[in-house]
């Protein structure tokens, strides 16, 4: 769905992945730390990206095809000790990669993708981050 499509889009952009730590996914080391689970694994290194669903609404569609505005959040988290420069840069690259760009979402026909500029956040225990909120307007296939 949307979170996987976002991961597939971001994981091949080296300008972004070069700024991220790597993680051992399914035994494969060296894979960019982009997760589609919330929370991220405790043993991940940072910076890392976490993509998760945040709902949406069904205020789009036609008489013959149901549709929706689907929301997801792309969070770029850094280390406590690390300065903000890297994650801020990564977050803006995420925004550029998604705002009004094409996106292939399995099971849907994508009409439009909107991404909001990065917003600074703090996870409450001191890890700095930026979030990019994404909305995909889709028709069911």
């Amino acid at each position, binding site marked *: 769905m949307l979170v996987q499509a976002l991961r597939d889009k971001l994981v091949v952009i080296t300008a972004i992945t070069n700024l991220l730590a790597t993680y051992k996914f399914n035994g494969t080391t060296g894979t960019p730390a982009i997760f589609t689970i919330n929370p991220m694994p405790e043993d991940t290194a940072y910076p890392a990206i976490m993509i998760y669903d945040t709902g949406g609404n069904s205020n789009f569609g036609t*008489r013959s095809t149901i549709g929706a505005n689907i929301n997801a959040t792309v969070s770029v988290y850094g280390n406590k000790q690390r300065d903000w420069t890297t994650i801020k840069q990564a977050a803006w690259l995420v925004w550029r990669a998604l705002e009004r760009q094409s996106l292939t979402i399995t099971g849907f026909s994508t009409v439009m993708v909107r991404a909001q500029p990065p917003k600074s956040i703090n996870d409450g225990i001191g890890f700095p981050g930026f979030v990019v909120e994404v909305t995909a307007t889709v028709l069911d296939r």
Partner: protein
Amino acid sequence: MSESASAGFKAKFYWATSELGAVNGDVNGSLSQAEIDVTTRGDAGWKNFIPGLKEMSITLNSIDPKDGTGAVTIAAMRTSFVAGTKAVAKMTDEDGNGWEFDCFITKFDWNQPFNGPLAYPVSLRVCGAPRLVGTGS
């Protein structure tokens, strides 16, 4: 006793024999009748009317379908508008009850909203009397 209502999104609009499934807004059919004032002094201070001419019009909004029957139907409507020809159209509820009519297109807009899908707002003028289909509307 049970009560039910038909949902608008389940209703149908046909241009010729093709259903326009790409409708993504309201389809509004308006039937009206003129009123002719025939008030006389004999009406004891009340206005009096007789019914005049009746008319019917339809407005609808369709997104721009990129393929499938919806695209074919929109293309057929565009062709009819450009040629200025009449067609038979039909609007019904989900059970096939409603109106069928001869009509032509009086407005065939093409909207390109910056933050939304391309859309065709269309207006139709019914020519002559519409015909009830099924049990009517």
